[in-house]
């Protein structure tokens, strides 16, 4: 397994580079809608979370949800944006899932502007803005094939989702390869969850990603961009922009030009398809929403929100990396931080344990559903202590941990004793090492010639012979002694 996740590796195709900006919509974790008091809840019976505002009934008026504003501020401050005076506008277009035939959205004066987000490897993606807007209802297409619009007999509309608060986070076109795009989405999701702004589940649609993709020769002007919609997983983000960049390069290589358009990512055929061209784009007739007033958070409110932010994933990764001796962008650190198990690892260290070994065992300690550890940090601390003191091999430690997990707690030393575990002494290992060298002369020769890879086969043979009771580090040391003596 590769030890670290880097995104710096350049993506190029026939000399072209990709230029990608992402627009991420997230549903905010409020109790009620952006402009009315019906519940913001996923999965209820259709058209039950409705009120006059949600349905756009004549005479209904929007009133802004303070918590939605605060969550947008939390997110914005977490990605280093400036929170500013903002206004709402109406984006006018007809669609049956848009009750008023206009969407209330922040347009030329968004609440959060000019931020950035650092990927785990340190690559910085600029954030142009994050603004509040309302979600639409949901259409279901009946008849025809596969629930698609085209060929359907009719459609049915559920307005439960209409008016749910969204924040749209618009990145700058700083992304240059699929790995960066995926890392950006992952990092943004981690931040959203950490600050409590959203559950950010792409599979439930509470986080949706649109990608603006263009290609260019390095140093040249930006090319014509296409907007890719319907990207429903992090993996698809990478696939969709890679496909789209390849498509654009092929067109340019064939002497054709790129048409500015909106394209639809099809997960099943792995391609993007024209949804509509920008030439016949709707004329949205934006104008300031007269039913709402300016939102101008005072500095005191902004600072209160800023101070209430939790330690963010990037800082937590650094903390965990320092405690465990790993790189902040190592896979183990990324995964453990993403699962919010980093605090537990640090607690093991505080309880006198070894953070590095705790990082290895943390997955087992969280084997139960529900996100809570099933082993007291002090018990894992005792176990890791025995490991680093050479009293237990890694394999033995796993077995002891399994028993602690099964019982919900346990004294590592007592369990190890009951199993008769103790690391083999050097004297007991030596004959096994001799056997391993004798039975695998090729591996031994390669190891002596400096091929580190050959070590694994030799250590493996000893581990097998000792039924896992040998300490891998001790075996390696013995093998190196022999080699140095031979040399």
């Amino acid at each position, binding site marked *: 397994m590769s030890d670290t996740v880097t995104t710096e590796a350049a993506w190029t195709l026939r000399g072209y580079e990709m230029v990608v900006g992402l627009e991420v919509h997230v549903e905010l974790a409020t109790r009620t809608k952006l402009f009315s008091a019906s519940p913001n809840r996923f999965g209820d019976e259709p058209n039950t979370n409705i009120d006059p505002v949600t*349905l756009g009934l004549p005479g209904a008026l929007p*009133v802004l949800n303070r918590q939605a504003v605060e969550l947008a501020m939390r997110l914005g401050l977490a990605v280093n944006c400036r929170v500013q005076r903002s206004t709402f506008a109406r984006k006018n277009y007809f669609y049956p899932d848009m009750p008023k035939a206009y969407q209330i959205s922040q347009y030329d004066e968004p609440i959060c502007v000019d931020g950035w987000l650092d990927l785990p490897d340190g690559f910085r993606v600029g954030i142009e803005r994050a603004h509040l807007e309302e979600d639409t209802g949901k259409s279901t297409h009946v008849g025809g094939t596969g629930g698609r619009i085209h060929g359907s007999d009719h459609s049915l509309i559920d307005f439960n989702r209409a008016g749910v608060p969204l924040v749209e986070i618009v990145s700058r076109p700083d992304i240059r390869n699929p790995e960066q795009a995926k890392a950006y989405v992952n990092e943004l999701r981690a931040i959203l969850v950490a600050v409590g702004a959203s559950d950010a589940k792409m599979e439930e649609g509470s986080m949706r990603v649109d990608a603006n993709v263009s290609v260019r020769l390095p140093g040249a002007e930006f090319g014509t961009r296409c907007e890719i919609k319907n990207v429903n997983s992090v993996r698809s983000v990478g696939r969709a922009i890679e496909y789209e960049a390849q498509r654009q390069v092929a067109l340019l290589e064939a002497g054709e030009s790129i048409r500015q358009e909106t394209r639809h990512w099809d997960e099943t055929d792995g391609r993007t398809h024209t949804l509509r061209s920008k030439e016949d784009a709707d004329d949205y007739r934006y104008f300031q929403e007269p039913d709402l007033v300016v939102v101008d958070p005072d500095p005191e409110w902004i600072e209160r929100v800023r101070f209430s932010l939790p330690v963010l994933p990037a800082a937590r990764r650094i903390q965990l990396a320092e405690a465990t001796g790993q790189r902040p962008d190592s896979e183990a650190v990324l995964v453990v931080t993403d699962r919010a198990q980093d605090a537990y690892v640090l607690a093991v260290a505080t309880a006198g344990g070894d953070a590095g070994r705790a990082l290895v065992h943390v997955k087992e300690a969280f084997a139960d559903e529900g996100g809570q550890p099933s082993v007291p940090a002090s018990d894992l601390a005792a176990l890791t202590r025995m490991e680093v003191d050479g009293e237990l091999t890694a394999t033995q430690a796993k077995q002891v941990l399994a028993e602690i997990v099964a019982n919900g707690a346990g004294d590592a030393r007592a369990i190890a004793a009951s199993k008769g575990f103790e690391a083999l002494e050097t004297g007991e290992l030596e004959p096994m090492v001799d056997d391993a060298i004798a039975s695998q002369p090729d591996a031994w020769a390669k190891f002596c010639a400096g091929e580190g890879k050959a070590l694994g086969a030799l250590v493996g043979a000893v581990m097998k012979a000792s039924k896992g009771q040998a300490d891998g580090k001790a075996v390696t040391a013995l093998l190196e002694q022999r080699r140095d003596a031979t040399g």
Partner: protein
Amino acid sequence: MEGAVALGVVSDRITPEAVAKVAKLARLSLSDDELRQATHQLSDMLDHFADIDALDLDNVEPMTHPTPIANVMREDIEMDCLDHDEVLAAAPAAEDGRFRVPPIIGLDD
């Protein structure tokens, strides 16, 4: 709010093509006669409205609201919803607890 200002002043004439485009945007259909009449009437109005071309408005802030109030917000507290059955009974067409519409096509242009 952005967009090229094709016409810098109010006094420029409106064309039948522009009226047809506007009607389509507003989801209104006009017969040829109605289009001609609407073009004529809108032209008359715009002629009258050209009086503001005489004003120098360069340094004037647009006024969108009569009263300069800010930060009107409500707490995030649930209130009663409308009755599902009553609302759907009032719909022109409903099915399966949802609002029914004919096939959704022709809406992207």
